[in-house]
């Protein structure tokens, strides 16, 4: 019994310690962000390209199918109330406010986040980060911050792409397949969806972008510098990002609704 309590205590202490270290790390990354954004923007652009281009295809494919599913589900449900014309609004709200940011963030964690974590972890395991320090170059602004900012900038763009393609997928299913009236479909979206709704999506995408990138960079930087340690870091990146994204999603939705 006492050993269970002791284990529980140790685990909690370890958790608090890790969480504190993560916050200090985040502050370090954020503190260097302005200088990198202003002084070394080229590095950031390169990383936006790396992470963004990496995730673009998977985001587009998934967006199309998620939109298509919304079209099918929406149609079968709304048809019971003879409201199948509203299917566009139904899909638009779902995509812009919820599914776009959340699914994009989860896909981003799986594709770009793991790539970031393993890249940084490998740089550490092969002494590249030590070598930089020995060349009097701080790896935080040179390696970590551009990758973090690249993710933060790429995420809202990816979310926008996802939502747009998703809506197009709904259009394909509803209008082309199930012959919903195309005018009603788009007009209702235009009338009903407000800037406020879009803002919610934008805020979520930025928060998720910060969370997903910071977690990936942190896991890579703190990976045990062996092949196994890097592997574990990539797994943890996906798991922790998924939890963080869904928790943040709940909190933001609760505040904004």
């Amino acid at each position: 019994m006492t050993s269970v309590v002791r284990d529980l205590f140790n685990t909690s202490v370890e958790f608090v310690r890790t969480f504190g270290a993560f916050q200090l790390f985040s502050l370090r990354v954020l503190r260097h962000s302005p200088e990198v954004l202003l002084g070394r923007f080229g590095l950031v652009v390169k990383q936006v390209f790396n992470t963004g281009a990496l995730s673009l295809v998977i985001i587009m494919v998934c967006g199309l199918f998620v939109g298509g599913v919304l079209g099918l589900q929406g149609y079968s449900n709304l048809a019971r109330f003879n409201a199948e014309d509203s299917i566009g609004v139904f899909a638009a709200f779902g995509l812009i406010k919820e599914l776009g940011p959340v699914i994009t963030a989860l896909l981003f964690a799986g594709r770009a986040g793991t790539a970031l974590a393993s890249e940084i972890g490998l740089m550490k395991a092969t002494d590249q980060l030590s070598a930089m320090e020995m060349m009097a170059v701080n790896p935080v602004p040179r390696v970590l911050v551009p990758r973090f900012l690249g993710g933060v900038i790429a995420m809202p763009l990816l979310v926008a792409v996802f939502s747009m393609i998703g809506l197009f997928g709904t259009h394909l299913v509803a209008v082309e397949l199930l012959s919903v009236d195309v005018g009603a479909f788009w007009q209702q979206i235009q009338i009903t969806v407000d800037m406020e709704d879009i803002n919610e999506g934008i805020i979520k995408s930025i928060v998720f972008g910060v969370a997903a990138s910071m977690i990936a960079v942190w896991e890579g930087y703190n990976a045990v510098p062996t092949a196994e340690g890097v592997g574990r870091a990539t797994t943890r990146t996906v798991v922790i990002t998924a939890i963080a994204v869904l928790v943040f999603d709940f909190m933001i939705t609760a505040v904004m609704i």
Partner: protein
Amino acid sequence: MLCYAVAEGTYVRQGPQKKQTMKQLDDSSHNLIEIRNLKFSRGHRVIFKGLDLDIKRGEVTAFMGPSGTGKTTLLRLITRQLIPEEGTIHIGGIDIATLNMAELYRLRQRFGMLFQNGALLTDLNVFENVAFPLREHTKLTNRLIRHVVLTKLHAVGLRGAADMLPSELSGGMARRVALARAMVMDPDILIYDEPFVGLDPISMGVIVRLVRRMNDTLGITSIIVSHDVAEVSTVADCSFLISGGKVAASGSPDELRTAKSELVRQFMHGMADGPVAFHYQAPDYEEQLLGRDAE
């Protein structure tokens, strides 16, 4: 204010912003690096227990010792990538434990370090790897950078590999590129971790002469970690044999070769039996093979 010891006026460093930081302090001292009573452990494993050694300015100093004795660790302590539990390390009269981050980075710009596995940056090609310190620390024009980088690559015989990626290089080539990168800022102190491993005899000869020549003509202080007793003998002015957490023996290669001590003789002549155990600590061999564990 931070000051460094500088090898007296042997060369002028590039980059205008560097000059003001080049205050000279304690140039008189014969020893560039002084380590006193160094203690360090990894977990429960004690690696150094009271190590003392001096590295003389302008000489080639070698660290030798059995594998796992802590030679790489010692280099990391000297460059403050690790912090000792006890004891002091003075470089040019400055206790490096007292430096803040900015001062430490300024000190490190006077170091060039060749890592045991090269540690080239995998997302840059060979040219950019060598150019990396120049691009980060100087405002040289592209033309000049190109000139300097190609000169250094030529010195290690890899000018033709400038456009290759690190993943396309063999182990020996990667190490030579890393050597070019370590030299590119014209450091005062060059540290080599196992520079001779994985080199063919021809490149080995070239690199050994290069190390020696940089030392003689540029007044660089060099620290070499190596197992290669023969190569060390040709290049080093002074060797330290590190074993059991301390300096077990020191002196010129000739002195070491003729030393009476059992340990030195064992190491210098590569004998399996002697004070240094070839085996890592382990339970009794017979016991483990035939004993209860075997079932």
